């Protein structure tokens, strides 16, 4: 019984760790730029495929299997650089527009990226065979959990702490919060908005691509994974509260664990339960659990 429970909860927490990274990317972009980025799921898919390629390349060089995490994470982070041309080339034209147009611009990105990924990596699912259990399994209250899952959960916690530090303790974090609060005032005080937006969007993109890369040893990369994940990330930010970083942590845990429990208890419920919670939150508390105007 406890064994089952631990298994269910741990797989939920692993999923939550990945969801948090993508949702955190969504939150920083929404908080600062006020754009709900539908393409965050596409960045996640891009990171996943890049991770597959990076690990494949690493396997070819014959390096020690235990270090496969390095090229995986590095590849996932570095491909986040695409956020820069995307922001400069497309998004910057819509900052003054109605949010419908901003949403549709990110929808255009979703469409384009799905096919760009298909063009680059093909349509068949891609996976990194055999690396998932490189670090073995750990015994936890009678259940066996892949150590890789624990590594990802730890990494996600470290990143969450790092983001908290960035936002509250650094000059750039203060600028981000000031911009989120009052863009005109921040600009009047001499903040170069173009640079802030470019940096923030690249940060958000890199969080998404890293999340995608880290999920890869556990599941195969598929071209639809992006549009599927965006609705989960959407549930996370709605439950947690749009723009709130603490909300992303709580929302990711709620969605990850609830989904895992629902799948094991009554599979038909799976995402249905999550969406019903989303609707309940939107109706009873539209700002979410931790929603505020600032991040």
């Amino acid at each position, binding site marked *: 019984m406890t064994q089952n429970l631990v298994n269910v909860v741990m797989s939920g927490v692993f999923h939550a760790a990945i969801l948090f990274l993508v949702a955190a990317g969504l939150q920083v972009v929404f908080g600062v730029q006020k754009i*709900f980025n*539908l393409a965050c799921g596409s960045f996640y898919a891009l990171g996943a495929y890049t991770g597959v390629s990076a690990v494949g390349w690493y396997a070819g060089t014959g390096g020690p299997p235990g270090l496969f995490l390095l090229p995986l994470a590095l590849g996932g982070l570095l491909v986040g650089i695409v956020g820069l041309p995307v922001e400069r080339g*497309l998004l910057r*034209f*819509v900052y*003054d*527009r*109605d*949010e*419908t*147009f901003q*949403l*549709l*611009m990110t*929808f*255009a*990105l*979703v*469409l*384009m*990226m*799905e*096919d*760009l990924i*298909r*063009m680059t990596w093909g349509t068949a699912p891609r996976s990194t065979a055999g690396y998932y259990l490189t670090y073995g399994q750990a015994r936890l209250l009678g259940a066996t959990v892949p150590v890789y899952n624990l590594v990802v959960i730890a990494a996600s916690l470290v990143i969450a702490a790092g983001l908290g530090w960035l936002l509250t303790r650094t000059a750039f974090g203060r600028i981000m919060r000031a911009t989120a609060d009052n863009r005109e005032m921040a600009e009047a005080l001499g903040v170069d908005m173009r640079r802030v937006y470019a940096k923030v969007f690249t940060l958000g993109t890199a969080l998404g691509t890293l999340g995608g890369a880290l999920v890869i040893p556990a599941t195969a990369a598929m071209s639809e994974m992006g*549009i599927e994940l965006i*609705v989960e990330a*959407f*549930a996370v930010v*709605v439950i947690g509260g*749009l723009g709130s970083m603490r909300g992303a942590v709580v929302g990711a845990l709620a969605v990850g664990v609830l989904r895992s429990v629902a799948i094991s208890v009554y*599979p*038909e*419920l*799976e*995402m*249905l339960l999550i*969406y*019903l919670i*989303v*609707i309940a939150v*939107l*109706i009873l508390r*539209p700002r979410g659990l931790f929603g505020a105007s600032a991040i």
Partner: protein
Amino acid sequence: MKPRASAMWGAVLAAVILGIALLPLLAPTYYVLLMLPFMALAVVLLGVNLLFGYTGLVSFGHALFIGVGAYAGAFLTAHTTVRSLEVMLLAAAALGAAVAALVGALCVRYVKIYFGMLTLAFGMVFYTFLLKFYRLTGGDEGMRVLRPSLLGQNLDTMPKTDYLAGPYYYYSLAVLVIAALVMWRIVRSPFGLCLRTIRDNPAKAESLGVSVTRYRWYAFVISGVFGAVGGALLGPPTGNVDPTLAYWTSSGNLVFMVLLGGFANFFGPVLGAFVFIFLQDRVMSTFPYWRLVFGAILAFIVIFAPAGLMGLLSRRRPAEVVRVIPGVR
């Protein structure tokens, strides 16, 4: 609009309808069949634009109603002896109205991004329901739609393409024309004027005695009915309905079509559906990655032509566009 201009547009419209009516005699069957999803989607989009263009609410879950209508029709042919398309359309309209009344009551209290998110969530609830409740809905395989009878005529012995390119084609066209006439009456009525006031200045509308949420709810329900009727028309041509009809990307494509044609014009969404369907067909036949092309088109429209194709056709910039996009020159 000046009388001369309106006479010109009337002539254009008559020519277009005549062209569509003559198409089965002139064009290859392939293109005639491609008109069927266009006409069904055009009915849906008339409803979407009542919310988007006239009331100022952008739904990101409108594919929900396509799903409701399509599955209502499919369910009737699969589980009952009903084969009449009239009954299917009426059932779809009634179910669409019921679902929209419920969903709308919860959604119309919110505007902008929160309205979009709520409708998206409801759309995904319905999608997951279709996907997971296998026994009722057939899961990811969907349901078969048996060939409906038209106006009491059983046409089961006809070859399939003759049926679709003949009676079904004209039936769809008739539904589209009736839907457009009804919608035209709605947006030109005092009720339509109230919706536009609500869109432009909700506070003023409220102070003039217009109940903003109630009128938004009316618009939502009407829009849901149009969505369900259009959805019910989508099923018979393919003979099958599946959950992807109600997926969120399908809702996104609906908003795309409205924007492509031009949300500020009554016929913009219809033109948008036409261009979307036929361009998609052309692009797919030469290049497998139609989403890349369409994403680029959407980005272009968002940045350079927010009034859509209709905006490019008419030189006058409608007030609606200026209202939505203050930065537009």
